[in-house]
Each structure stands twice: as structure tokens, then as C-alpha cells.
């Protein structure tokens, strides 16, 4: 029996499928794969790539933190933000990556310290967007972890 999956954010439903064979999820504790009949699970999500495998297709999503609940073959992903490949603006992501890297290379003392965490998160988000975007939809094979 396939999994029923819904990926929702505060603002919208990003993905709703009832024919999911497998999904690869970036949790804060590491990457996991959820197969049908998975044990009930609640976990927090990292910034990363969520890959949904349905018959004949892989759907990659860039997700930026949140939660996952797996119970009785129903998977709920409460994402802080989630994007489909075609929604990602590669140039914007690239610009964000450069900006974040520049910030990270800058001074680290004083009031800049708060910015450090923000820049790191921004960099992570930009990298995830770029990775998901460049993989495109329909690519075969299991994605690399990093």
C-alpha cells in the first residue's frame, strides 16, 4: 500500500499525493527514508531536499525546516517553506548564495555575530534551492546526501 503524503506550509498546500512509494527526508538528526508501513514517527526537519518517489517519477522539493509526522501510512510534512523545482529562481538563489558567502567571509566580531547565524541559514537555503533546481525533475537515482 503506498503512502499518502501532504506537504503543507502556512500559506498553501505544496504537494498532495496518495501514491507515494518512498520519500527521502532531511531531518535535523540526519537523512531518513520513509517506506510504507514505517513506524510512527515525529521528527523535525532540516533545511534540505525532500525527494518524493511516485510511480515513474521523482518529485524533488526544497524545504526549509519544519516537521514530519508519519502515522499509519499517512505522512504529514509541516514545512516552514517548501518549493517545487519550477518555482525556484536560480538567479536569485545564486545571488543569495554569493551574498551569504560574502557575509560569512566578513568580520565576525561585535554586532555582526547575530548576522553570522542568519548568513549561515541563508547560505544553506540558497544551496538547497540551487541543488534542487539543478537536479531538475525526473532525474533518476537516489540523490546524494550533500
Amino acid at each position, binding site marked *: 500500500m503506498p503512502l499518502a503524503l501532504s506537504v503543507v506550509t*502556512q500559506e498553501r498546500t505544496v504537494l498532495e499525493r496518495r501514491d507515494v512509494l518512498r520519500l527521502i527526508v532531511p531531518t535535523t*538528526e540526519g537523512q531518513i527514508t520513509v517506506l510504507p508501513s514505517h513506524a510512527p514517527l*515525529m521528527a523535525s526537519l532540516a533545511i534540505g531536499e525532500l525527494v518524493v518517489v511516485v510511480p515513474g517519477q521523482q518529485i524533488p522539493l526544497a524545504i526549509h525546516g519544519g516537521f514530519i509526522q508519519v502515522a499509519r501510512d499517512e505522512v504529514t510534512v509541516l514545512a516552514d517553506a517548501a518549493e517545487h523545482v519550477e518555482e525556484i529562481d536560480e538567479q536569485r538563489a545564486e545571488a543569495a548564495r554569493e551574498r551569504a558567502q560574502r557575509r560569512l567571509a566578513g568580520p565576525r566580531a561585535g554586532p555582526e555575530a547575530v548576522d553570522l547565524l542568519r548568513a549561515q541559514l541563508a547560505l544553506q537555503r540558497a544551496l538547497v534551492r540551487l541543488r534542487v533546481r539543478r537536479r531538475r525533475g525526473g532525474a533518476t537515482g537516489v540523490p546524494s546526501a550533500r
Partner: protein
Amino acid sequence: MAGAGAVRAVRNRIRSVQNASKVTKAMELVAASKMRRAQERALSSRPYAERMRAVLAHLSGYAARGDADATHPLLQQRAVKHFAFIHITADRGLAGGLNSNMNRAGATLALEQQPHVERVSALPVGRKGRDFFRRSGFPLLAEFTAIGDFPGMAVVLPIARIVIDDYSAGRVDRVFLGYQRFVNTALQRPTFRQLLPVTAPEGAGGAKPLDFIFEPAPEQLLQMLLPRYVEMQIFEALLDAAASEQSARMVAMRQATDAANDMVQDLTLTYNKARQELVTSELLDIVGGKAALEQQ
């Protein structure tokens, strides 16, 4: 009797009322289309809200069972010294009694709380509420204006941040969330409910509890989930308030248009009467003049 000047004055007045009714008609149509969009947004945020409530209900059960001492700070009840409330209004008026009803409800809540606590402050979101509390010299925790017709998470996050930080630091002991709840197009109701401390939603019950794996531990998950739950509630309120604002404005503008049209009708009647009288009196003059000439 009415002269030519009076007739012209009535005609000008008709024209200006007609122009006003065109403007209010246009505003009604704009509000109607914005209302539809606001309602759609409220609708599309619902799946997250429902699932969030379900997950939280699940989780808080586990966390409570695990360790009673480790209740999350946002869940902790304590004696209320400082009461604060988020007060959502529109930035703009022309929405019938929407904003003033909300402000009155906010003021009533503040007066009710004042005898029981040391301090009451408001956190107005939207210009109409901000202006109201400022005018009355009410203490403000913070203020947010220019939130736009379609507020997004960018509006929610700073508000949530302030109340969560203040609550966690013990500067505020209870926070209510107030907004105009959208009942239907013709009815919006000022509504206040508790935001902090968080009262975890009840589980669906019935279903047999599952043996969950938690990664990380339930307490840590709860710590990440609760702020989002607070954000979600503020977001829901903002979306509801946005739908309320547009529908109140639509109804107010429709009434204004109807009133203007009634007025045009009355004025047209007056105008025709005045014109008729003018023609009659001119005719009388001519006929009278002619009769006088013939008699000579």
C-alpha cells in the same frame, strides 16, 4: 419661486452625487474582488492549521506524560501581572463600523482586565487600532502598521517574535489575540482569545495512541513546534481580519452607492419640479404680457 439659478444648482448637485456614486461603486467592486482573494488565502492556509493542531495535540500528550517538570515555558500558567493583547484592525477606513467596533471591543477588554492585573498593554496591528490606542494614551507593547491587503508570514514573524520573547522572559504573563472574525459577508464579529500561555489543542480521541519514535525528544520537538503554533494562530487571525475588512468595505460601499442613487432620484424630482415651475412662470409672463397688449 425658483429661478434659473436654483435649477442650475440642483443640476450641479445631481452631477456631484452621481460622481460620488461612481466612485463608491468602483470601490465596492475592488473590495469584492479583494474579498474573494482574501477568502481563498484563508482557505488555503487551513490544511496547515488543521494538521498542526493534530500534531500538537499528539505531541503535548506525550511531552506531558514524559516529565511533568519539563513543561515548556510557553505552556506554563503563571499569576498574571502584565496582560497584553494583540489588536488587529484595518489600515484604512471606509469599512462601515468594522474598525470602531473592534476598537470598542479592545477598550472593553482592557477595562475588564485592568482591575485584576498591574498592567495592561495593547499591541495594535493596523493603523486604525494604533491611532485609537495612541489617541487615548494607552500603553503599547509594540505597533505594526501598513500590513497590506494580503498579509504574509513576513508580517506574522515579528509579531510572534515579540510576544514569545516577552512571554518567555516573564515581561508579559498572558497574551490575547483579537481580530474581526469573518462570520459571513454581512457579519464580522470582534473576537478575543488566549494566545499565550498556549493551551494545547485536544486530541481527536478515539484513535488508539501510537507508539511514536521521536527525533529529537518530544520536549525538544515541542519547543520547536510551539512558536510555530503561535505564528499559525496569528496568521489565521490576520487572514480572517483581511477577509472581514474587504467584505465590510464592500457592504459599506454598496450602501453608499444605494444611498447616492436614492439621492439622485429625489434630486431629479426636485430638479424637474423646479424646471417646470420655471417654464410655467415664464409662460405666465408671456401670456400675461400678450393679454395686456391685446386689451389696449
